[in-house]
């Protein structure tokens, strides 16, 4: 597997900078997920690795060699597109075998009409036929080999696209939101299948998604991007537990981390403007900041028993757990009846508690579970660095 290194890679379309000075290393055998909202530049980055998009500035290194101008075929990568990009006029067998046939093509085979004959003959060649069949078996596509993509379901097409990527045994697999066109059930199934495949082939996977659940469940490492800028590069656990900034804190996790404006006056904490809270730990030496806590780190109590008085505004019963959206009782809660995510504090509790919308309750937390962020730029504040 080639070691892949990005050195200050940028991409601009006219005046629009899609990727700004991106630097990262991709390690051998890892499942790296590029995670970010639509338009953050993650697919462009993947296309630059494949050689489908030019690099405006900076260097992309394959095994230490600058590969900015390499043709896609020189890079030895396989690419799975969001739309699968199967060849509609070819059968599943022909689709899977196509990369092998292209590798076996001599220059003059590319002549019109000659290519038809050559393709038919190469399809019958023992090594190509066997390899195609073996990959088809691996992905349970054998009964579909003589069908065309139009007659396949989304999941089957997805598997054909994966089979076509696998057949050449490349060192690097690039997957561009391959599950986004599938329904929720199939997506869960394919997620497991792709993870299993990664373990089986042991090659490097670079996977683009905007779905944080996909990223958290599949990745060995995640690069979180926003507006062409890397926000954080780390393992899924680290990204979840120790987000580098409010963007990551909000983007990873469902429901996202609760981020509440806070102020510190005379070493006393006030949340959401007026709610004075007794915080049993040292506070950052800032006047204004953001208080962050994950929904599962909050605990739900009857009114008056927790430090944060609240009123239930939303109840989402998910079966094994319940997500409750509360409005903090700051004294001004009646002025604002919006139910936006930003205005509510979410708490995740196991089971199915008997709680109703409008009911008064209280929330509590452990001081160790609180993360502090800069209120202006959103960066994480570490107490020991202050």
């Amino acid at each position, binding site marked *: 597997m080639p070691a892949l290194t990005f050195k200050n890679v940028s991409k601009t379309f006219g005046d629009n900078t899609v990727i700004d000075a991106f630097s990262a290393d991709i390690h051998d055998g890892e499942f790296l997920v590029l995670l970010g909202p639509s338009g953050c530049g993650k697919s462009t980055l993947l296309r630059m690795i494949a050689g489908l998009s030019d690099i405006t500035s900076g260097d992309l290194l394959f095994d230490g060699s600058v590969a900015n101008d390499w043709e896609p075929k020189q890079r030895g990568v396989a690419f799975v597109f969001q739309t699968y990009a199967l*060849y509609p006029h070819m059968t599943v067998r022909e689709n899977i075998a196509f990369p092998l046939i292209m590798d076996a093509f001599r220059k003059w085979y590319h002549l019109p009409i000659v290519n038809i004959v050559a393709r038919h003959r190469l399809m019958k060649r023992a090594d190509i036929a066997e390899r195609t069949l073996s990959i088809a078996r691996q992905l349970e596509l054998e009964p579909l080999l003589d069908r065309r993509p139009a007659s396949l379901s989304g999941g089957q097409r997805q598997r054909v696209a994966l089979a076509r990527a696998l057949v050449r045994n490349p060192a690097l697999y690039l997957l561009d939101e391959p599950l986004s066109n599938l329904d929720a059930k199939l997506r869960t199934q394919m997620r497991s299948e792709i993870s299993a495949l990664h373990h089986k082939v042991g090659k490097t996977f670079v996977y683009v998604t905007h779905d944080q659940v996909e990223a958290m469940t599949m990745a060995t490492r995640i690069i979180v991007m926003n507006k062409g800028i890397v926000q954080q590069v780390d393992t899924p656990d680290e990204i979840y537990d120790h987000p580098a900034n409010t963007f990551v804190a909000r983007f990873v996790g469902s429901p996202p981390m609760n981020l509440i404006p806070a102020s510190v006056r005379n070493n006393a904490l006030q949340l959401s403007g007026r709610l004075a809270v007794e915080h049993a730990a040292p506070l950052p030496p800032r006047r204004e900041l953001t208080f962050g806590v994950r929904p599962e780190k909050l605990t739900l109590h009857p009114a008056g028993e927790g430090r944060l008085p609240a009123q239930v505004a939303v109840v989402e019963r998910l079966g094994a757990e319940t997500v409750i959206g509360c409005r903090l009782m700051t004294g001004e809660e009646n002025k604002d009846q919006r139910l936006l995510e930003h205005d509510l504090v979410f708490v995740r509790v196991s089971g199915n508690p008997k709680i109703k919308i409008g009911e008064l309750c209280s929330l509590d937390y452990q001081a160790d579970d609180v993360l502090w962020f800069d209120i202006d730029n959103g960066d994480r504040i570490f107490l020991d660095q202050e």
Partner: protein
Amino acid sequence: MMTPRKLAMKALRYTLIGVLVVLAGFPVYWMAATALNVNSQLYGTGQVAWPQLQHLPDLVTELGNVPIGRWLFNTLLIASGGTILSLTLGALAGYALSRFKFHGRGLVGFLLFMTQVVPEALILVPLYAMFITFGLLNSLTGLILANVGFSLPVACFVLKGAMDAVPYEIEESAIIDNCPRFSVLTMIILPLIMPSIAAAAVVAFFAGWNEFLFASTFLMDNSLWPASVGLASFVGQYETPMSAVLGAALVFSLPAIVFFLLIQRKIVAGLTAGAVKG
């Protein structure tokens, strides 16, 4: 069970189709009926409205006196040569216009469009002078090239439009699979736009098949004439053998009808392609 309203609508539909079939088919029928009549009846008032098969041997003898096979072959050569050349160059040009960004792309499109605005008769004299210079006068090659000048832009536009509708990802996928650009076009793109190729083929083929103006101007040797010029040569100073003219016209129509029948399914698919989300 059909309601009376539905039944009436169906009857109306079939009646309309019947009328259209009669309108379209009557000239062909009249051509056959006239071909199998005797000239004396055609110039008098006694033309029989149906084909008289007893005159078939006379018609065959009369058509045997002219190189009808040769003319038909020339027409086929002009039509198919022009079609192949137009489709080949049109596919390459259409692909370039569809996929590559280059300076003057808009201008190329505009110039191609302009070729359709200029009437054939207007460029007849300059083309004649050019053909003399290049030694293309009185040759089928020259005639094919002149025809391609008009059918190529149409083929190019039709194929470019079809290629625009082919998703980039399919092409990029082939490039990742180690397929060179030229093979991407021949092995991936062209099979996907077959209906549009068929539509462009019909336009180019019939442009060549119906060729008359250039052929009658540039070809002096009657062994090089296409069917259209050959047909016109039946018109004499004192007499025009109408039954022979229409008999020959019938013979000339048959290959065109066969070609159209072979390709019509693909054309219909081409005309409706992209109308709905696939």
